[in-house]
């Protein structure tokens, strides 16, 4: 033996999991949704996604290299996830300049200002998305109609999302009628499931999102706590409203499958950095998101509530972490 021995503190054995692997895992989980959206919105969807991902990565690199003067860490893949998820909650016909601006805000304001990966209290992609939403409400609320694979970037016809149609019409007619009004052309459950509806890039195909969820659960990238508690809360809350007054409220299933709820609950609320650390905390967080989502959807000005709900609960995450601790071993002594 001629080389020197390596000495390090224990443990000497490490698991195979790594940050990039987790991040690329999320990318893989998002692939089906991307395919579905390309199917319905055409190459424009791919264009928006690529621009978003590439500009997120480039901004991360530039900021780390030239402003923070740190070793750029774009290899960890987190900027790619941010880029993907940002694109997934934009309309496909958003001008590319705005996509780039959104990436800048997501990475620059949402992430790097706080010191980069792991430090940001708010979900960067959502910071970018909500920034755009509040800055350019017109562009951000004109949704393309799914026209199939061959739609090009420019000829997307603008339509409305199912939730905005609902929001518009609650006061005018009973929900039944909205659903069946030919002029409003609300998508039915199967369209919702397969993704043929207006909306952001990545929120349309329920089946693809659920596929991704299954993958992430199996790979143990995330645990069930956050998505399940959000979805259950929304189901229960909208269920109560619906039972109380089916005339004025859509049924829970409809709520679950529309408006980016799945996208948010599965991929965005679960962002490690901005969600609580303990299992109990995760459930409280999920319930909070669920309640706020329904409140905003049903009583607020915006037809869509998940994004705001997640950001709001992000703000409460440190408090949850502070007060909800994992139960310590030997804390409550119940012996017998």
């Amino acid at each position, binding site marked *: 033996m001629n080389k020197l*021995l390596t000495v390090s503190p224990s443990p000497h054995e490490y698991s195979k999991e790594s940050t990039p692997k987790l991040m690329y895992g999320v990318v893989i989980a998002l692939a089906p949704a991307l395919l579905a959206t390309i199917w319905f919105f055409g190459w424009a969807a791919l264009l928006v996604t690529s621009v978003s991902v590439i500009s997120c990565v480039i901004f991360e690199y530039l900021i780390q290299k030239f402003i923070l003067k740190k070793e750029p860490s774009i290899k960890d893949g987190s900027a790619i996830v941010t880029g993907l998820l940002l694109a997934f909650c934009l309309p496909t016909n958003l001008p590319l300049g705005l996509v780039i601006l959104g990436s800048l805000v997501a990475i620059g304001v949402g992430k790097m200002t706080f010191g980069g990966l792991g430090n940001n209290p708010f979900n960067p992609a959502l910071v970018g998305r909500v920034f755009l939403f509040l800055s350019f409400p017109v562009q951000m609320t004109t949704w393309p109609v799914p026209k199939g694979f061959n739609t090009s970037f420019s000829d997307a016809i603008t339509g409305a999302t199912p939730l905005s149609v609902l929001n518009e019409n609650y006061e005018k007619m009973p929900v039944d009628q909205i659903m069946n009004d030919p002029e409003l052309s609300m998508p039915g459950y199967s369209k919702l499931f397969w993704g043929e509806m207006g909306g952001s890039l990545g929120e349309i195909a329920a089946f693809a999102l659920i596929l991704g969820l299954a993958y992430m659960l199996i790979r143990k990238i995330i645990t069930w706590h956050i998505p399940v508690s959000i979805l259950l809360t929304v189901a229960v809350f909208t269920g109560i409203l619906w039972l109380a007054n089916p005339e004025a409220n859509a049924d829970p299933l409809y709520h679950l499958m529309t408006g980016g709820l799945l996208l948010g609950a599965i991929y965005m609320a679960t962002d490690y*950095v901005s969600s609580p650390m303990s299992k109990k905390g995760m459930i409280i967080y999920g319930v909070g998101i669920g309640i706020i989502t329904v409140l905003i959807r049903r009583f607020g000005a915006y037809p869509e509530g998940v994004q705001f709900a997640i950001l709001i609960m992000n703000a409460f995450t440190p408090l949850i972490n502070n007060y909800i601790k994992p139960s310590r071993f030997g804390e409550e002594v119940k012996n017998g």
Partner: protein
Amino acid sequence: MLKTFPKGGVHPPENKISAAAGIDVLPLPEQVTIPISQHLGAPAEPAVAKGDTVKAGQIIATSKGFVSANIHSSVSGKVFKVDKAVDASGYKKMSVIIKVEGDEWLDTIDTGNEHKKDITLNSEEIIRKCAENGIVGMGGATFPSHVKLSIPPGKHCDVLIINGVECEPYLTSDHRLMLERTGELVTGISILMKALKVERAMIGIENNKTDAIERLREFTSGIDGISVHALKVKYPQGGEKQLIKALIKREVPSGGLPVDVGTVVHNVGTAYAVYEAVQLNKPLVERVVTVTGKELEKPVNVLARIGTPVSNLIEFAGGLPDNTAKIVNGGPMMGKALANLSVPVTKGTSGLIVFREEEARRKETGPCIRCGKCITACAMGLEPYLLMSLTEKGMHERSEKEKIMDCMECGSCSYICPANRPLLDYIRLGKATVGKMIKERKQK
């Protein structure tokens, strides 16, 4: 469903390469280096001087204080010097260095191989025998066993737990011991029960050692009060608090000891050593050591004399492979890396693992992504990521409140962390600082 502890835990690859290798007796070395402190507590005081001739089993350092243990010569020969020598701690410690001449044992020691089953001594005598013969815990902590056997007044103990878990990957010494010295081990357990005056003993063994479980079940089937329990394979099942929780569902309170919940935990190796000490009057001068590694020619379990240089054991296992980059004394999760092969085997050496280059180095550290995996992994219900940050930022008061002292340094958190954060490194640092703070506070 197999029993296990409910909270936390990880499952590293088991790598029990040497499981099938029977216990070989290691040839005597030319020289042994016996540190005078091989246990937790006060170091013993040297009782021999340079030039003295000693026999195997003779006391060469006497215990000082209650929490301390005698040190015996493991060989016969001449004391070469009493001086500082590097031990597994990585620093030089006072040691007795003996040049080996022949293999002569003290007459009082029964060196025969016969299994002596009858227990003639009473509780106090057993404890005294353990103390005299320098028995310490072989499970890793090397806590003097007579201390653990002396139940403090006001406390009581109703069940003895025998730790045959061996949850560390690679290690097989306890496994082989359970297979090859089963009878003596069971007698040792009975002795411990008598010492503790308990009616019940439970042996916990992880389910990856089914042969040992069966063999022990066979040997204990006729004995009242001793039961064998198969446990789910999960690290750190061998941690005594986890084992207690898994077997009898009691939770040792934070900062408390097993006796607080009416139990005492002993390692199988300890039980065997107690058998030898009580029945054969043989002090603790040798132990089973696993020598293993993926590239090693001949992974073995050897019975080695205390003080034998580590290099001898490795030679016995076929010598160091070319791409060796790290040697760990103990298990891969809790063991200490050695900088030097002249380090001696001590009472706590359960294994030597030879790592290849690709296994030896840590991966690059990234920022904490707050994935919470370390929390999920921690069997003590701590928040390792937080404890590390608090220590880094010098916020020790808060880490005390976050129960940093409960950490048993099992390493599950560092193991699992996808960002490869040196969690345990910092937690240890924090524990040291907080420990000092607590001590100072008590002094006032």
